[in-house]
């Protein structure tokens, strides 16, 4: 959907059957605007989600850890047998689901932001190195990328967690260290293209050091790419974190996390569907709005980027 390539596509399409009408460009523009508007709406929802996680103690209706056996497995408030003080119902020991979901967002967002930061740092540095220096450096880093990409992400994370033991810092570390290849691959390709531009040559001619060229001349051109990948990766990481917690290899109960709530709810899905459903919806909504925002960011910052 590059701005420059659209006109030629229209010309070619017009030679075909009448199906491709002249308002193709109008369509495309309207479509992009629509996507941007969706992106804005998504960012607004994301701000709400982040705010509810940050201010969880203020807005949550109850204590996420308060056990109340008499109210266990209460259905959501609108169903028969539901109580108004438990809007989304309660779990197997009577803890309020809504409060747990609000607090659970903290884990997902912290893990998402933390591991994306680690992954982006490693990936960008290696990608810059491979793309700028080329040759043997490039070969080594590309092989490393291939090895990492061959290894299923889930399997790698699982086996490392199994050795290190499950905890919040370990999870951030594992997901961060396992997630860098995607950044490195894209940054490497972009760096290779930028390296050939005149301003890099001019910098070399002026006697700039490699480090200065890489970090001051090349890297600033890559900020938008990095922001787009990082945004989309936060969504991926949140899904992986919740899967690990779902298996019981991530955040340990009773700390509420969307993943371990889902895992606990699975046991009760025969009669109490709400325990597994609502945390999953929270993951779905969060990753959905992050993806929408990432797509809009990509259209806005860097329409040529293919991700």
């Amino acid at each position, binding site marked *: 959907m590059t701005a420059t390539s659209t006109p*030629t*596509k229209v010309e*070619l*399409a017009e*030679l*075909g*059957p009448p199906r491709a009408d002249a308002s*193709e460009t109008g*369509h*495309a523009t*309207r*479509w992009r605007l629509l996507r941007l508007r969706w992106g804005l709406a998504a960012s607004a929802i994301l701000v709400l989600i982040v705010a509810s996680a940050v201010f969880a103690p203020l807005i949550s209706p109850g204590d996420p850890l308060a056990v109340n056996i008499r109210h266990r497995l209460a259905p959501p408030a609108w169903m028969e047998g539901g109580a108004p003080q438990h809007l989304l119902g309660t779990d197997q020991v009577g803890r309020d689901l809504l409060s747990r979901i609000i607090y659970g967002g903290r884990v997902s967002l912290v893990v998402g932001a933390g591991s994306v930061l680690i992954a982006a740092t490693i990936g960008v540095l290696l990608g810059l190195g491979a793309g700028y220096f080329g040759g043997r450096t490039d070969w080594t880093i590309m*092989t*490393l990328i*291939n*090895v990492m*990409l*061959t*290894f*299923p*992400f*889930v*399997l*790698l994370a*699982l*086996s*490392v*967690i*199994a*050795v*290190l033991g499950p905890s919040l810092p370990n999870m951030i570390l594992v997901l961060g260290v396992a997630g860098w290849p995607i950044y490195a691959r894209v940054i490497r390709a972009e760096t290779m293209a930028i390296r050939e531009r005149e301003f890099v040559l001019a910098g070399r001619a002026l006697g700039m050091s490699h480090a200065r060229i890489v970090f001051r001349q090349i890297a600033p051109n890559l900020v938008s790419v990095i922001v787009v990948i990082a945004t989309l990766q936060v*969504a991926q990481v949140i*899904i992986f974190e*919740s*899967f690990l917690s*779902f*298996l*019981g*290899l991530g955040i340990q109960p009773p700390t509420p996390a969307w993943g371990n709530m*889902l895992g606990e*709810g*699975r046991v009760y*899905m*025969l009669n109490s*569907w709400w325990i*597994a*459903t609502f945390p*999953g919806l929270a*993951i*779905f909504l969060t*990753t*959905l709005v992050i*993806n*929408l925002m990432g*797509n809009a960011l990509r259209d806005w910052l860097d329409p040529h980027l293919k991700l």
Partner: protein
Amino acid sequence: MRRYLARQLVQLVVVVFGISLLAFGILHVLGDPVLLLLPQNAGEAEFERYRHLLGLDRPLYVQYWKFVSGAVRGDFGKSWYADTPAFKLVLERMPPTIYLTLAGLLVALLISLPLGILAALKRHSWIDTLCTGLAVAGQATPLFWLGIMLIIVFAVRLKLLPASGYGTWQNFLLPAFCLGATLAPITMRLVRSGVIEVMNMEFIKTARAKGLAEPAVVVKHAFRNACIPVITVLGLQFGQLLGGAIITETVFAWPGVATLTVDSIRNQDFPVVQCAVILLALLIVGVNLLVDLVVGVIDPRIRAGT
């Protein structure tokens, strides 16, 4: 073609070497097998005895060599838990995983090919918008949650399909759909953009100019060329697909390698984990090589280019 093949093989050897290092390193460098094997109050003498018994007091490169030379012969050591060779345990569980992966791939193609082509041909129409919307929603859906929701609806409420188990075709439906639905969005987008790109090319104009019917243009000329990026990415996605199969297996209690791996991780049974990880990685590398070769045969530009 021969040079292309040679380059791919060198790449393969290096990647396999890297994977073996990674699988070995995770256990031996990050963790201490003896700490995992013995109870914490076992005492220093007992720890030392076990270290010596397992050969862990020797230098790392010696241990690595022992590990690799065994692995090449299919000897990954005995399971610490079941007292059977790890290789045999893992191999027995391989077929269900492969069947599930293939079934998931089939479902993904059945969903993504028609929708992708339709969306490309009716670009910017409501069908296109609907397909893109579905793809965006699909990418945001956690696989394991989708699986649980499917079980709640189709097995618990409607009582139409079994919630778990293995053996009959009914057992395949939910897991295969679950896995396929997660691969479908990205495939659909690729098919769509591939077809759009190809439909604007000169040879399509030629095909139309010589009076070919539109369906023939789409199927014979556009689709075949749009296949190349799709096959490439499907090959690259195979690792992700297998990763998805791991998640699917744990939700539906599918008796494949993944459930074995997760159980072994819970039991701290590392020979089995190592063996499973390496065999799965080999499978992925093999498929990637196959895809590269197939693409090289379909599209001569690729062999010559890189």
